[in-house]
């Protein structure tokens, strides 16, 4: 019976030794990664919440794209270096020019007027020889039969993750995979967020969604677990497989933005095998779904997916060998961005994303060298960035000493304070309401908000379009004359007196209506956290300048959404992130038929101006050029006058990277940029150890203090004991 005990002892000894080994005296104790990865070619990044969807038909947010854009490859991508943003082929051989057809499918010249064009056809040719990442869905046995395509629930129960499947396979990318994915956008169980948009554009898509819904209902009624709707059996009118590598998409009318959609993961290829594989009974119960395990042709594949802690992208061994771009913007060569021109991508072997919910640990780890890149958190701005006299920015001396460099760019987004145009006080198109809105727009000092809450990281918006989008105008030509004056060579917010005058003209002299009742406005928000409190206080202060009271109606996120949908909000904050670099993607936020109330669209202010709508319908089908610019100018001016938004700001992104990271250029539109990056792991290892020497003496000091405190008591106790022994009954 002594044997197990000695074995147990040996184990204990082993554990102790191992603990001893993990904290060797010289290495950094606070290294959150395994010691073995010390000099590995790994990029360390973080994610702050678990991505909800990794299925390219469902995913529609930046934190999800951070993963799937590295895995899935749509036919086109944005050029990494060139600006303005330009589409280049990714798996396709070229970016196609559309073929225009009239109502009776006769071909029209490229110069045909938009009104005459009934259909456009995009023909996409793929590069042959592109292969998928290794995946069990492709695995075949010796006879060429699929290995894991007809499993029963009992077998599936043995597998917990995709890595548990013993065999994997691959297959060449074909045009049918792209078609399959387009069909999936209409799948009733996937709730693809762009189903509505595509139904308006792709020929026959609306009917297709209806057909699929009916088929799906029938399948569900049969009640089989793991029902699989084989989309290959349902033809879609608007897509056509020309040959193994070529397919065509037919859309209604002229819609130049369609190409941009085809650069998004929504249009990435999906092998039907993978869909069928994950539809087998028991898979969903084990969290084995396409929403969890992407299957793509891209440079990386997701190998570890533990969103509670870590997600790991690993180099795809079957990657088709894309090369680093050879040209860029002027200045890119000087910045060292072209050093790797012509080199095969990707450069980094593995990307480890760790869950990091809060800013503080993330920032601290970045400074300690455990994350390679970081945004500049607000609270550390002064530590990281020095702003020069003319507003130019560079890293602080402390950062410079560590070799950290800074990149800045204005994001193609807009954050705004909206007025609900359906509201009886701030809404409506009369003189009173318009002047009230204009007065508020002047009073809310966006420049101050940017300075206080964003450390100057942003520019105040002059209209709906952010810089970098066609139609945006710089300088005096782009100033919003209802809020700003052009003075001293820059836009200056009108003085508060101007706002007070407008308010009086609107019938609220000194913040009171004709009956003397104070004007009370409501700001609806879902921002209830204490971090938001300061900003809400600030907002109240802004309206206080007009003697108008602002009541913050903070509710939870759901209630807020509900209010917005019902049009019960009054003032609110909203934002929009560009899907693609086209003005249509911003101006449609003010397009009447796109109203939130009734239309369930993205026009949160419920703005509805017939003239604006008419111009929008004209503008959206035009190609970029002076004509389009003129129409956009007209639209922007109408919107500025009506002021459905108190124009907010376009945020600026500041990002820092360590000296060992190279080939980084901010790109607000493309998400598949990890493949271009390069790191120098040796340099990183040295820096980490230098920056993280453990300091032990304070602990020793505290211990010594404790002992010193207890010793006298022990001594005097001993003495007492001795005394009491000498005189027993004492």
């Amino acid at each position: 019976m002594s044997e197990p005990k000695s074995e147990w002892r040996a184990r204990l000894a082993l554990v102790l030794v191992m603990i001893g080994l993990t904290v060797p005296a010289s290495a950094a104790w606070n290294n959150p990664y395994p010691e073995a990865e010390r000099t590995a070619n790994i990029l360390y990044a973080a994610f702050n919440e678990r991505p909800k969807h990794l299925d390219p038909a469902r995913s529609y947010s930046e934190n999800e794209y951070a993963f799937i854009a590295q895995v899935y490859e749509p036919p086109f991508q944005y050029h990494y270096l060139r600006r303005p943003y330009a589409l280049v082929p990714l798996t396709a051989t070229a970016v196609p020019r559309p073929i225009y057809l009239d109502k009776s499918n006769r071909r029209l010249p490229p110069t045909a007027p938009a009104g005459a064009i009934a259909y456009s056809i995009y023909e996409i040719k793929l590069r042959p020889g592109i292969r998928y990442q290794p995946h069990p869905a492709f695995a075949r046995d010796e006879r060429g039969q699929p290995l894991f395509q007809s499993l029963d629930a009992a077998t599936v129960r043995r597998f917990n993750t995709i890595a548990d499947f013993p065999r994997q396979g691959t297959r060449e990318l074909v045009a049918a995979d792209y078609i399959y994915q387009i069909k999936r956008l209409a799948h009733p169980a996937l709730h693809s967020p762009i189903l509505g948009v595509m139904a308006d554009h792709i020929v026959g898509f609306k009917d297709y969604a209806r057909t699929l819904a009916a088929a799906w209902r029938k399948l569900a009624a049969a009640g089989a677990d793991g029902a699989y709707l084989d989309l290959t059996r349902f033809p879609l009118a608007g897509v056509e497989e020309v040959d193994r590598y070529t397919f065509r998409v037919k859309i209604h009318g002229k819609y130049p933005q369609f190409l941009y959609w085809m650069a998004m993961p929504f249009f990435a290829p999906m092998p039907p095998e993978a869909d069928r594989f994950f539809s087998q009974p028991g898979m969903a119960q084990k969290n084995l779904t396409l929403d969890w395990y992407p299957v793509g042709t891209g440079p990386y594949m997701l190998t570890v997916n533990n969103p509670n802690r870590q997600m790991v992208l690993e180099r795809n061994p079957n990657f088709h060998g894309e090369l680093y771009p050879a040209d860029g913007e002027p200045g890119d060569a000087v910045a060292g961005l072209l050093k790797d021109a012509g080199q095969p991508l990707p450069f980094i072997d593995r990307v480890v994303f760790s869950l990091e919910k809060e800013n503080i640990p993330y920032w601290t780890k970045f400074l300690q060298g455990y994350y390679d890149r970081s945004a500049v958190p607000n609270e550390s701005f002064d530590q990281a960035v020095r702003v020069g006299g003319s507003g130019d920015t560079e890293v602080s001396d402390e950062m410079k000493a560590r070799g950290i460099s800074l990149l800045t760019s204005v994001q193609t987004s807009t954050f705004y304070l909206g007025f609900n145009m359906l509201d009886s006080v701030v809404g409506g198109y009369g003189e009173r309401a318009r002047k009230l809105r204009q007065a508020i727009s002047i009073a809310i000092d966006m420049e101050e908000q940017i300075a206080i809450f964003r450390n100057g990281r942003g520019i105040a918006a002059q209209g709906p379009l952010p810089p970098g989008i066609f139609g945006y105008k710089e300088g005096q030509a782009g100033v919003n004359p209802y809020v700003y004056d052009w003075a001293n060579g820059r836009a200056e917010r009108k003085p508060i007196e101007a706002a007070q005058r407008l308010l009086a003209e609107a019938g609220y002299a000194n913040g009171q209506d004709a009956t003397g009742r104070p004007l009370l406005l409501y700001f609806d928000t879902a921002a209830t956290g204490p971090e938001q409190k300061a900003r809400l206080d600030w907002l109240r202060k802004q309206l206080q300048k007009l003697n108008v009271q602002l009541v913050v109606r903070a509710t939870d996120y759901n209630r807020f959404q509900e209010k917005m949908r019902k049009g019960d909000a009054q003032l609110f904050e909203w934002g929009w992130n560009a899907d693609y670099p086209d003005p249509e993607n911003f101006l449609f936020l003010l397009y009447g038929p796109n109203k939130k109330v009734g239309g369930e669209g993205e026009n949160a202010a419920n703005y509805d101006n017939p003239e604006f709508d008419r111009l929008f319908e004209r503008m959206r089908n035009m190609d970029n050029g002076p004509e389009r610019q003129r129409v956009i100018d007209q639209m922007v001016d109408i919107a500025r006058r009506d002021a459905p938004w108190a124009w907010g700001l376009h945020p600026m992104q500041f990002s820092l990277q360590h000296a060992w990271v190279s080939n980084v250029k901010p790109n607000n539109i493309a998400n598949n940029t990890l493949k271009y990056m390069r790191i120098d792991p040796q340099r990183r290892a040295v820096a980490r150890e230098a920056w993280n020497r453990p300091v032990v003496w304070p602990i020793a000091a505290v211990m010594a203090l404790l002992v010193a405190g207890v010793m006298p008591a022990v001594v005097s106790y001993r003495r007492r004991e001795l005394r009491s022994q000498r005189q027993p009954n004492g």
Partner: protein
Amino acid sequence: MLAYLIRRLLYAVPILLGVNLLTFALFFFVNSPDDMARIQLGVKRVTPEAIAQWKAERGYDKPLVYNDKAAGLQRVTDTIFYRHSLRLFAFDFGRSDEGRDIGYDIRQRMWPSLAIALPTFLVGVLAYVTFALILAFFRGMYLDTVGVVVCVILMSVSALFYVIGGQYLASKLLHLVPISGYGGGVDAFKFIVLPVVIGVVSGIGGNTRLYRTFFLEEIGKDYVRTARAKGLSEARVLFRHVLKNALIPILTGVVVVIPLLFIGSLIMESFFGIPGLGSYTIDAINSQDFAIVRAMVFLGSVLYIVGLILTDFSYTLVDPRVRLS
């Protein structure tokens, strides 16, 4: 003994039913299924059809507690309450509103929670008993007075300060441990140390003082005087007699929390980014994932009741005079 156990377990059933009803009422009247759908489906371009579909998939389109469209027994079983709340009794947690298997997540996240909570608990109890013993041993001397004052001071500090201060000192200034995160296996050690130390320190004040009064109460009793009169040394008296008898009140407070260790600590886990059940619960509250919160409340109640039963049993172990009937 067995009869006692069975009776206690039977008694637990109505309690759990009550817990279930209460959470069901609270969460379902707060959050309509429409709201849950909207949260899960995201912000951009959500259609009413998608919401209806989402609800149907998860059975949230059913009536709450009584289905007048169904027939027979289905009037009760074909409802949200039956399908989502009563199944918990079979420890079938179902799927989260996001579509993940909750049981799997709980099993995964239980271990990090335990890795923090169990050492905190063990080290904590050991430390508190030791400190309390030392204070009781040196009672009436400066060490006791100073110790009690320090205890009161320590317990007047909000737990948040310990966490914020500890993290700042140990991780940021002294580079002793990683500032947050978690690793499996042997790696876990460096992530666990700081939360455990902070957890223990934040409880020192209150618990040491409490245990000290337990010891002093025992020391005041007659049998201790007798033992001392027999010539036993003070240390022996303390360890042989006082410690053993003072264990009963200590056990009352301590055993009941043992099962709850599985649930983890909300604050510690979210501060240190530990992927345990505590942060799971906080995330679920924030994202209003009703299914997870319901499961966690149920689990918490079950563990609490288990703790009560364990406490009763531990009495019989420490004090043979206590008999369960």
